[in-house]
């Protein structure tokens, strides 16, 4: 087993375990902290795939900004740990069953798909994940969507302020 495979399986187990802990934690603050660990594991996967720009952006934007926003809102509205009403056991069981059967169905489907069999993906080679090629594409071919996303940010900011004010 090569070092890449060991890293892949370790990071995958880390990501899935943390993702399950997001669900089973009663306290929302613990869920946020586990979700930050999931994002770090996914950033590790990006580094394995040599997508260095996305790895850093994932840490800065998701683990840094978005999760701090979640923590901020949870602490602002001061939910008590025990005040969250629990769903009935039957509803929870049905939810887990639905999620599990969704996973089983798609895994069975992917295992049979011919296009996905024997396909290898490039792990540490290739330069498309570095800042220079990505920036070149982003500011030539995708410059219009890039500018539109700034308008989207502006409208989201105005919307958040208006919703939060009243």
């Amino acid at each position, binding site marked *: 087993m090569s070092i890449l495979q060991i890293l892949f399986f370790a990071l995958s187990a880390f990501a899935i375990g943390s993702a399950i802990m997001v669900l089973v934690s009663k306290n929302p603050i613990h869920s946020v902290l586990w979700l930050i660990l999931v994002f770090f594991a996914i950033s590790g996967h990006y580094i394995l795939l040599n997508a260095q720009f996305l790895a850093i952006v994932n840490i800065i934007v998701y683990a840094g900004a978005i999760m701090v926003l979640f923590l901020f809102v949870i602490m*602002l509205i001061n939910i008590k740990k025990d005040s969250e009403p629990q769903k009935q056991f039957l509803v929870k069981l049905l939810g887990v069953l639905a999620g599990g059967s969704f996973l089983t169905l798609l895994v069975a489907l992917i295992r049979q798909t011919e296009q996905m069999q024997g396909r290898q993906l490039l792990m540490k080679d290739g330069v498309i994940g570095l800042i220079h090629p990505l920036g070149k594409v982003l500011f030539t071919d995708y410059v219009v969507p890039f500018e539109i996303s700034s308008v989207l940010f502006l409208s989201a900011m105005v919307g958040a*302020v208006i919703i939060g004010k009243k």
Partner: protein
Amino acid sequence: MPIQYYIFLCLALFSIGVTGVLTRRNAIVVFMCIELMLNAVNLLLVAFSKMFHGLALATDATTTVGIEGQVFVFFIMVVAAAEVSVGLAIIVMMYRNTHSVDINFLNRLKN
């Protein structure tokens, strides 16, 4: 590394997100599970971009085939950041009106 490993990992993360949306009642935790699903899709997009890049690299050493996948992941992150700001504002407004973040209160949206 076979592409199927990455597909299975992303499917597992996505299904955990789906299960969370179905089983939890706290609106903030439901929202976090949606973020988890978005991240699973991002990881899969990067994996596919590397797969097609590896195929094209065999014939042309300077190709940038597959870079679109990573540009799309960048745009998904942009949209997710905007979505989170608006969504959390809605949750705060909901808490101010009902003093709860239980999603079952949302079925009273009509009055």
